[in-house]
């Protein structure tokens, strides 16, 4: 049984699975249920400054369903916690006391003044929590008030607020980044320069999940109107993985710990984030769909996979994929694969042919004999090895992409004769 214990930016947890700052971590009741189920830690739903509580709308979530499956993607227009600050602080204190081995990080979002951050940090420190996460990510509502993504989209603000926080607390500071920017490395560098102990990403993506064509308004709809919300769930994982890899590869932020977030629903997703250097991973949509009990497969599945691969601890494979993420210009232009169709496995659906014929390289021929048997054959000379047929084929291992030994040496674009910039 592999050791799943996790340490990131000085924060320890028995496993790397944390609940992200979101509705599931808004209350002692939910968080204790999560800990009872086996979650390694939580980032408590974002606290704001003391004062009149936040007001939320009714109708808060929208879903993208795909092929009969619910919640391929989820968006929300909920704001930060709408409960009084002191209640949250008291509950955080009680939970941390009752569950000392679990990671308790508190998400924060207050106006962009040093005093406001100083005040909240002093209050939060009293709870005994393990760290704070600065919410510079929420794309809706709070950003209109100069917080959340409004800060996260300006690297200078990120750096300044992070510096304030590092001055006013000794707690580890996680900076949560918004993906609603053009280059994730800029805000990550700003957080690093401000002294952040770690970054968490991604926060949700600006989105409208659908338009209700009967009332001509975006969903979720509030009294006939809608607004862009924050998108998350399985659909956003590829975007998040790419952003995580950018930060992990950037010489400026190379050693900055990362807490990975975005579409993590099973152990494999988590392993992928960890392979790109993440210390912990944060989950929200999957528990909002199924409840906290998915932790069983997350822990068990990751542990079984690590046993199978001979990884005793998370450190054994953390970041192992980073060296293999490169720039396009360094890919080997002499590397060649071509598709092969296993005629025994082929069910004659023809998808490989029509997609190649219409949209790629006309490299799969189609024929039909007198009995109506259809045969699809790869034309090796035409195949460029794009993977499309392999991706559309519904039968596992029917189409394989096989390496061709052409005897040619590694040759990248920087060395290629066709490169005019060479």
């Amino acid at each position: 049984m592999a050791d799943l214990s996790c340490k990131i930016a000085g924060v320890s947890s028995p496993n790397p699975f944390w609940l992200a700052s979101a509705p599931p971590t808004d209350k002692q009741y939910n968080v204790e249920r999560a800990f009872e189920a086996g979650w390694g830690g939580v980032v408590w739903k974002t606290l704001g400054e003391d004062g009149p509580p936040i007001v939320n709308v009714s109708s808060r979530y929208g879903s993208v369903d795909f092929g009969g499956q619910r919640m391929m993607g989820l968006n929300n227009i909920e704001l930060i916690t709408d409960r009084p600050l002191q209640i949250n602080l008291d509950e955080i204190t009680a939970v941390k006391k009752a569950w000392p081995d679990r990671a308790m990080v508190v998400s924060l979002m207050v106006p962009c003044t040093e005093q406001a951050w100083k005040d909240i940090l002093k209050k939060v420190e009293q709870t005994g929590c393990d760290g704070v996460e600065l919410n510079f990510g929420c794309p809706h509502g709070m950003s209109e008030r100069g917080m959340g993504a409004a800060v996260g989209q300006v690297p200078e603000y990120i750096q300044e607020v992070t510096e304030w926080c590092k001055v006013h607390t000794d707690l580890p500071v996680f900076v949560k980044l918004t993906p609603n920017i053009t280059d994730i490395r800029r805000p990550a560098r700003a957080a690093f320069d401000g002294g952040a102990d770690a970054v968490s990403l991604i926060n949700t993506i600006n989105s409208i999940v659908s338009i209700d064509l009967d009332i001509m308004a975006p969903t979720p709809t509030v009294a006939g109107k809608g607004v862009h919300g924050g998108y998350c769930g399985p659909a956003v994982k590829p975007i998040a993985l790419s952003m995580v890899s950018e930060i992990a590869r950037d010489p400026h932020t190379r050693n900055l710990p990362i807490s990975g977030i975005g579409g993590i629903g099973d152990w494999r997703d988590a392993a992928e984030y960890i392979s790109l250097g993440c210390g912990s991973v944060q989950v929200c949509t999957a528990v909002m769909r199924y409840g906290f009990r998915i932790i069983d497969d997350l822990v068990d599945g990751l542990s079984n996979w690590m046993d199978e691969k001979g990884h005793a601890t998370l450190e054994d494979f953390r970041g192992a994929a980073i060296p293999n993420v490169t720039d396009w210009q360094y890919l080997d232009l002499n590397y060649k694969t071509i598709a092969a169709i296993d005629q025994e496995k082929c069910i004659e659906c023809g998808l490989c042919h029509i997609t190649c014929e219409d949209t790629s390289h006309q490299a799969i021929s189609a024929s039909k004999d007198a009995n109506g048997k259809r045969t699809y054959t790869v034309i090796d000379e035409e195949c460029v090895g794009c993977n499309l047929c392999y991706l559309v084929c519904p039968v596992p291992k029917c189409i394989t992409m096989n390496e061709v030994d052409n005897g040619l040496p590694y040759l990248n674009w920087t060395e290629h004769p066709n490169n005019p910039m060479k």
Partner: protein
Amino acid sequence: MSADIRCARLAPEEIRKNFSELHAPLTELQAIQESARCLFCHDAPCTEACPTDIDIPGFIRKISSGNVTGAACTILSENIMGNTCGNVCPVEELCEQVCVKNTSEEKPVVIGQLQRYATDYLFERGIQPFSRGAESGKNIAVVGAGPAGLSCAHRLAILGHNVTVFESRDEPGGLNEYGLAAYKMLNDRAAREVAFILDVGGINIETGKTLGEDFDLAELRRDYDAVFIGLGHNAVRALGMENETVDGVYNAVDFIERIRQQDLLTLPVGRRVVVIGGGNTAIDMAVQIKKLGAESVTMVYRRGPVQMGATEYEQQVAQTNGVLIRTHAQPHRILTEDNHLSAVEFEYTQMDADGQPAGTGETFVLPADQLFKAIGQALDAAPLESDEKPELVHGRIKVDEFQHTTLPDVWAGGDCTAGKDLTVTAVQDGKIAALSIDEYLNHG
């Protein structure tokens, strides 16, 4: 006309084909797609319907995530014979009957086949997820190496106890090895499962040792710290009719055992066959004798299709295999020629005011070369005779909710106690008894 009974009524390859597995195993693609159909219900009805309390949505989710080893462990930690049960459980009246997908899509998730997929995966890779706990120094005797006894033995071994299993037959496995239909238990499935159970260590099986003959209950109680009795059914009910012992009349359970253990081409198969009974044994008998080449097979039951012990699905399996099911008729006379069965006379029945079948006086005759009796099995309590013996109730050993008998150091489970006579319930009985025995040994 003399009886027409022959071996190898069909070509060897045809018989082999007939005895190939009822359901082909799920492919990886099928397993992934089927597991994605599971909604991962809260407080899932399927788990509630499972006699062994398997976390069914949990194991299906693990198949879906690619954690198939984890899925198998989830199954086996509650039901060590989860592989057999995946094949033979009457899922249509257990987990699959209550699957919420019946309501939304009129088709349940195929839980039984997914269970088999996950456990096959584990066995094929030779993964042993269980290990023995620290040695307790306690010794427990288990009587009967069937599902109840082996389930009890395995759990006790995990808990660190030493277990000796006494089995009267030559091979362990009980009905899994000797009693289930051959086309449900192919490729030494039962033996593979037994080997997996014994692999955990701490279990010693003594075959050819029969309670009441080679030893008695008093000796076991003297020599061991606790005793579990999983005798199963050790007696077959008789029709109580004249000519019941003539050639051509068989007990179905004995013949099914021969099908499991003997070369199929050496079995005597009649041209015209009659099976009496309405339970799964009757179905298994009728289907298998048809698969062996009987020309006509008629299964006769004295009540209606709804009252049959065999599920509607099992009845359909029989019918699609060419078995004619006749209901509301009871055997009246066994007719013979030259001291051999020649026909069976039946009397039509009607349900009386108490819901019991009563003969109408009207009869019909079915010519028959073979007659198989499958009217139920029973416990013969004679082997339990000893200075003190456990109380019986309705002809079975009386137990409480912890499978504890009326003797302080004796537990019992499986078919020799009350409850549904299924592999899965026997496994649960053994598991519960083991936990209770452990509690007793640790805390008195």
